């Protein structure tokens, strides 16, 4: 199938899934108890004030019209106004992304930096000391909740050693170093379970590829063990690692909600959680859709990366 048709079909599929997800989110939030207008005005508000606000917010319009209005707003970047923050939701989310995106990016980089060398090393000497260490790390790392790692880091590193802060975020206005410093411990907490999963996948993939004919041929032609490993084995083992990285994104997002909460970081996760507890449903609705969009986009990107990493897959869908 020609490349363009295939890409168009994939983008169409992505949009269709996103549309279904948005409808599900919209209907769930609509079904949630409590009228936004009366929640905003409090229990003591007069009925006609509530009615006036309902009209102003457009809550009197039919369900379908409101859904379409939401989608139309999204297309122009208008997500409505949060009543607890009295700020446009889009602006609120934009601010919070400046914390969550660097945090998750740092965690992904950190987990890859731990997992790739550890997994490759473990695979290169199966049943050696590093392999044992790697397998203990991957078993334990998967089992340990990231928010508990966060608490232990606060206890041991922030309170014990006095390094970094126990939580909070100074804002990017305070300078690059203090802001990044506030993200270091949360990123470690977020990265360890991810690194555990990736180490396991890396090790298995490297062992599998190392037994392939082309690696044996390279070795038979006199290529050194290390050179064959880095030139032939590792690049070919990256596909399952990248796949797993993509599959882990939903967990990374869940993890960010928890870890941001532990370190009281003003990120998207904290926003979603606070909005829920204050029943600021317009924020919940948009944040959840944003998360879904991120998960779908990452999976889309991972699919696209396949053909870059493995030319054999080009031309297949």
């Amino acid at each position, binding site marked *: 199938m020609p490349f363009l048709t295939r890409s168009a079909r994939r983008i169409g599929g992505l949009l269709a899934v996103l549309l279904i997800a948005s409808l599900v989110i919209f209907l769930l939030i609509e079904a949630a108890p409590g009228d936004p207008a009366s929640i905003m005005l409090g229990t003591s508000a007069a009925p006609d004030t509530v009615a006036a606000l309902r009209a102003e917010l457009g809550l009197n319009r039919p369900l379908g019209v409101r859904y379409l209005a939401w989608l139309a707003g999204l297309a122009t970047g208008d997500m409505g106004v949060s009543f607890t923050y009295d700020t446009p939701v889009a602006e609120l989310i934009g601010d919070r992304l400046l914390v969550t995106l660097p945090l998750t990016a740092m965690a992904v980089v950190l987990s890859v930096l731990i997992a790739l060398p550890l997994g490759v090393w473990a695979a290169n000497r199966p049943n050696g000391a590093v392999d044992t260490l790697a397998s203990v790390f991957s078993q334990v790392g998967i089992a340990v909740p990231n928010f508990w790692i966060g*608490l232990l880091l606060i206890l041991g590193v922030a309170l014990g050693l006095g390094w970094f802060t126990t939580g909070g975020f100074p804002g990017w206005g305070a300078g690059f170093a203090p802001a990044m410093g506030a993200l270091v411990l949360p990123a470690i907490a977020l990265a360890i379970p991810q690194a555990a999963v990736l180490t396991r996948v890396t090790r298995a993939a490297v062992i599998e590829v190392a037994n392939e004919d082309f690696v044996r041929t390279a070795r038979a032609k006199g290529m050194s063990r290390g050179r064959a490993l880095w030139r032939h084995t590792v690049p070919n083992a990256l596909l399952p690692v990248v796949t797993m990285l993509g599959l882990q994104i939903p967990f990374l997002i869940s993890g960010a909600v928890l870890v941001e909460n532990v370190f009281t970081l003003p990120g998207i996760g904290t926003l979603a959680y606070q909005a829920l507890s204050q029943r600021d449903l317009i924020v*919940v609705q948009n944040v959840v859709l944003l998360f*879904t969009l991120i998960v779908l986009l990452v999976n889309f990107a991972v699919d696209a990366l396949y053909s870059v990493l493995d030319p054999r897959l080009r031309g297949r869908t």
Partner: protein
Amino acid sequence: MRRLPLSLIIGGAITALLIGAALLSRVWTPADPTAMNVLNRLKGPGEAGLLGADQIGRDVFSIVMAGAWTSLGVAFTATIIGGAVGTLVGVTAAARGGAIERVLMAANGVLFSFPPILSAILLGALMGPGALTSITAIGIFMVPVFARISRAAAMQIWARDFVQAARMAGKGQALITVQHVIPNIQAQIIVQLAIQTGLGILSEAGLSFLGMGVAPPTPSWGRMLADAQTYISAAPHLVLAPGLAIAVAVLGLNLLGDGLRDLTDPRRRQAS
């Protein structure tokens, strides 16, 4: 007799301990896990009970024991329900193929983009926090996990000769699925049940930590950690026990799953 895999022995022992503690907590705990005793407030291990006391003087050891029941109950219920629905979706997709398979797997893709915490936030808006919200949110995420695994496994069975023979004999898709496919993939499903129950415990703990899990005073490991964070300077010991309980429980179930896999599929033993 074949030697049992080490992971099966360790994982099985931890899981047995976990289930034992959960069951025992229904009839006996060292102290009442909900009884306050202000005199013991934030006392350390040994000063009040084996693991100390929390911010209102409840016995930590007893809450951890009772928390095992909550964690395991929520996680296992969610996994069984999600696993059953997911497996049904997976084997149906494998059996029918074509448009039905594509629609089912696309629906899976949508579900998979909602991690448990997101569904819990959405469902929390709808029905408030609680055990039912946790079970539904975790169960929803289990559906695509089991659907993917059972579909892949079932497709392998469908390609085998004995299934071809059954088709020649005039058996329908449903009958073949029940008589041939499910018996041949059940080992893989059971392995996943163990592993996913472990992940379910992690999710349950996360939800309780955020206050979206079971309602107080029902003991839960996640909420113990949320409480412990408030008193982290005054009583650091409160952070350790619940976290360790979660980690050991998940580790045990993962090892059990790995061990069962090695036992039922010896080919994988050399590979991994």
